[in-house]
C-alpha cells in the first residue's frame, strides 16, 4: 500500500510574455522559494528535486537540469528531470509524488518551467525535416484540423470556442499570476480577432509565456502546520499512445479516456461530474474544453459543448473548469501541466483567493501533450483519501 502524499507547498511565478528581470535559474528559484515558504520549509528540508520542462530547443539550453542544480539546492541530493511534451508539468508532479508514496523520500521539491521569450516555440515544434513536406505550422497548425473534426461531428455552435475563451480570460482577471489580464476582453474582441489556423482565432489560442511552478510534496508525518492545510493526493495516473496510428481516435483519444478511467477508479469516483468539485484542465485552444469534457467523462460524447453553453464550466457553474484562467491565459509550456495540478490543490486547500470555488473538496488536475498522446492526471482532496 502506497503511503499518503500531501501537497504541502505551492509556488508560482508571475507569468508574462517576457521575464527579462530573471535568468532561467532565477525564474525557477522564484517559484521554488514560494513553494518552500508556503510549506513552512527551507532548502535543507528538501531530500530530492524533480524538474520538468518541454523540449530543450525552446530555450536552447541542452539538459538545463544540470545548470539548475545549484539554483535548486541539489548539492548532495538526488535530482532528476522528466519530459513528456506538453503534459510534462503533470507527469513531473506525479514522478515526484511517487518518490513520497513509495517511501523513498519524506520531502520532495518539484519544479517545472518554460521561458518561451528565449526563442520561438514554433521552431521547436515544427522542425523542417529533410525529404519531407513541411505543412504543419506549430501546435495550432497541428490541432486546428482536430478542432474542425470535433465541430463537425458534434454539431456544436460555432461560437462555443469564443465562449470558452471569454470565460477563461475573465477568470484570469481573478488570478494575480495570470499572463493575459485584459479587462476589456469581450465576446466581440475574441470573435473579431484574426483567424490564425482557421477555425482557431488569435484570442482562442494560448499565449507564449515565461513562468515556473513549484510544489513541495511530503509524507503525512512531514506536513508542517502552516496557514493552509495540505491537499491530499487521492490518485494519479498517466497514459500514452503513439503519435499516429491507423484507427486512432484523435479527437477523443483512447489514452485520455483510459487515464481518466484509471484515476477515477483509484480515487473511488464513479460519477465524475457529481463527485468532482472543479477541474483545471489543459486547454491550449478554446475548443479543447468541450473536447476534454467528453474525453474525461464529464459529458457524453458529442455533448461537451453543452457544458460550456449552459455555464456549467463557469466559476459559479456546477463543474467549474479552469478558474485560474487556464492555459488560455498563461502558457509557460513545461509548467502549464503543473500549474493545473497546483491550481487544483489550491482549490481544495481554500487558497485560490478570488477564483476560489466555494467549498471545493475534490479537484482534478489534467495535462496532455504531444499529438494528444501523453496524459497525466491527479485527483486531490481536502480530506485524506
Amino acid at each position: 500500500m502506497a503511503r499518503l502524499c500531501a501537497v504541502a507547498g505551492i509556488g508560482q511565478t508571475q507569468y508574462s510574455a517576457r521575464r527579462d528581470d530573471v535568468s532561467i535559474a532565477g525564474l525557477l528559484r522564484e517559484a521554488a522559494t514560494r513553494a518552500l515558504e508556503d510549506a513552512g520549509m527551507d532548502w535543507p528540508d528538501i531530500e530530492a528535486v524533480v524538474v520538468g520542462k518541454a523540449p530543450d530547443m525552446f530555450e536552447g539550453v541542452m539538459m538545463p537540469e544540470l545548470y539548475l542544480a545549484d539554483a535548486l539546492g541539489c548539492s548532495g541530493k538526488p535530482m532528476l528531470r522528466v519530459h513528456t511534451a506538453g503534459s510534462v508539468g503533470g507527469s513531473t508532479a506525479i514522478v515526484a509524488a511517487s518518490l513520497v508514496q513509495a517511501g523513498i523520500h519524506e520531502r520532495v521539491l518539484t519544479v517545472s518551467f518554460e521561458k518561451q521569450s528565449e526563442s520561438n516555440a514554433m521552431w521547436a515544434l515544427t522542425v523542417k525535416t529533410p525529404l519531407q513536406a513541411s505543412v504543419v505550422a506549430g501546435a495550432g497548425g497541428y490541432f486546428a484540423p482536430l478542432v474542425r473534426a470535433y465541430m463537425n461531428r458534434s454539431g456544436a455552435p460555432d461560437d462555443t470556442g469564443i465562449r470558452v475563451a471569454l470565460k477563461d480570460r475573465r477568470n484570469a482577471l481573478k488570478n494575480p499570476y495570470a499572463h493575459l489580464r485584459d479587462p476589456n476582453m469581450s465576446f466581440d474582441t475574441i470573435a473579431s480577432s484574426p483567424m490564425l489556423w482557421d477555425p482557431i482565432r488569435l484570442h482562442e489560442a494560448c499565449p507564449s509565456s515565461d513562468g515556473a511552478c513549484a510544489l513541495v510534496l511530503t509524507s503525512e508525518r512531514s506536513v508542517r502546520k502552516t496557514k493552509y492545510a495540505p491537499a491530499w493526493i487521492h490518485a494519479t495516473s498517466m497514459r500514452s499512445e503513439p503519435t499516429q496510428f491507423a484507427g486512432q481516435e484523435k479527437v477523443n483519444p483512447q489514452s485520455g479516456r483510459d487515464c481518466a478511467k484509471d484515476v477515477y477508479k483509484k480515487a473511488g469516483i464513479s460519477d465524475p461530474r457529481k463527485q468532482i468539485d472543479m477541474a483545471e484542465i489543459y486547454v491550449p485552444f478554446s475548443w479543447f474544453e468541450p473536447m476534454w469534457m467528453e474525453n474525461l467523462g464529464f459529458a457524453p460524447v458529442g455533448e461537451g459543448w453543452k457544458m460550456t453553453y449552459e455555464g456549467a464550466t463557469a466559476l459559479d457553474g456546477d463543474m467549474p473548469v479552469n478558474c485560474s484562467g487556464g492555459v488560455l491565459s498563461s502558457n509557460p509550456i513545461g509548467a502549464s501541466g503543473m500549474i493545473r495540478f497546483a491550481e487544483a490543490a489550491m482549490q481544495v486547500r481554500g487558497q485560490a483567493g478570488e477564483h476560489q470555488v466555494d467549498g471545493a473538496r475534490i479537484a482534478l488536475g489534467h495535462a496532455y501533450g504531444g499529438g494528444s498522446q501523453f496524459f497525466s492526471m491527479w485527483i486531490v482532496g481536502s480530506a485524506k483519501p
Partner: protein
Amino acid sequence: MSEIVSEEGGILTAPHVLEYPYRRSVGPVLGRFFTELRAGRIVGLRTQQGRVLAPPQEYDPETGAATGSDFVEIGPGGVVTTWSWVVRPRAKQPLDRPFAWALVKLDGADTAMLHAVDAGDLSRMRTGMRVRPRWRAERVGHIHDIECFEPEPQATADNGLGGERQRAGELAMAEEAQKPVTNIKTPMRLEYRYSAGIATSRFLHGIAQGKILGQRCPSCSKVYVPPRGSCPRCAVATEEEVELSDKGTITTYAIVRVPSESIDVPLPFASVHVLLDGADLPMFSVVQECPLDQIRMGMRVQAVWVPREQLGPTLQSIRYFKPIDEPDVPAEKLQETV
C-alpha cells in the same frame, strides 16, 4: 531539388541543419558580469564564506544560497589551471587557428573560468602559465568581449604559480550611465546527417518514380503511408508493400494564416489530412487550385506532381493536392481516419 541527398545501400541521407538565434535573459548577477565586461573589467562575486566565484554565479554551488551582490574586480591576469589543445578549430570557435581551451583562474578569484588561450603553438602551453585577456575594441556585454586570453609577456611566465595575486577590493558601480546588460545573444547551430531509414527510403524511391508505396501490417492489415517499417499499434515489422492511388479524400483541414519559418507555401493555405485510397492513415498535405472557402471534409482530391523530369526522392515531388470531380465521401465514413 534543394537538398543534397546521398544514398548508400538504398538508404537516403541528407544534411539537416538546425540554426536558431536564441536570446538569453541573464538575470541580475550575470547581467552585472556582462555589463562590466562591456566596460573592459572582470568581476567575481564573493560568497558568504568569502570565496570569490568567477564568473559570478547566482547561487552558491556548495550551499545553494543566493550569492547576493558582493562583486569584486578580479584579474585581468590569471593562471591556467588546466587546458586542452584544439588542433583544428571549428567554424564557430573563438579562433581560426590552433588554440587551447583553458580553465583560467584570474587573480583574486577562487574558481577558474573557461576561455580560449591563443598561445600560437602547443609548445607554449603549460599548466601554471600566466595569461591576460585580449579585449575586443567593440564590446557588447558578452563573454566574447574577451576575444581570448594570451600569454603574459616575459616576467613570471615560467613560474606560473608565483604569479601576482592582487585583490582589487570593493568595486564601485560602473560610472558610465549605460544600461545594464539584461540579455545576450546565443546563436546555436547543430549540423546533423539525417537518415531516412529503410522504410522511408523505399517510399521515397517510389516517389521518385511517381509511385506512392505504403506498407500493410501483417497483424491488423492496416496500410500505412508513408510507411514506418512497423505498425505503431501492433509493434510488428511491416514488409508487404502496397502501391496506392494518388487520389484520396480530405478527412479534415485548417486554413493556415500564420507564417512559419519551416513552411514555404504562400499564406493563406489549406493544410489538409488526405486519406489516400487504400490507406488507413491520412497524410498531411496542402490543397490548391481550389478557393479556400470551398474546401470541405469528404472532398475528393488528387496529387499534383512536379514535372516527370524533376521527380526526386522527396515528398516535395508532390506539390499539392487538387480537387477532382467525384462525389464527396460522407463524413461518418471518415470518423476513424481524422
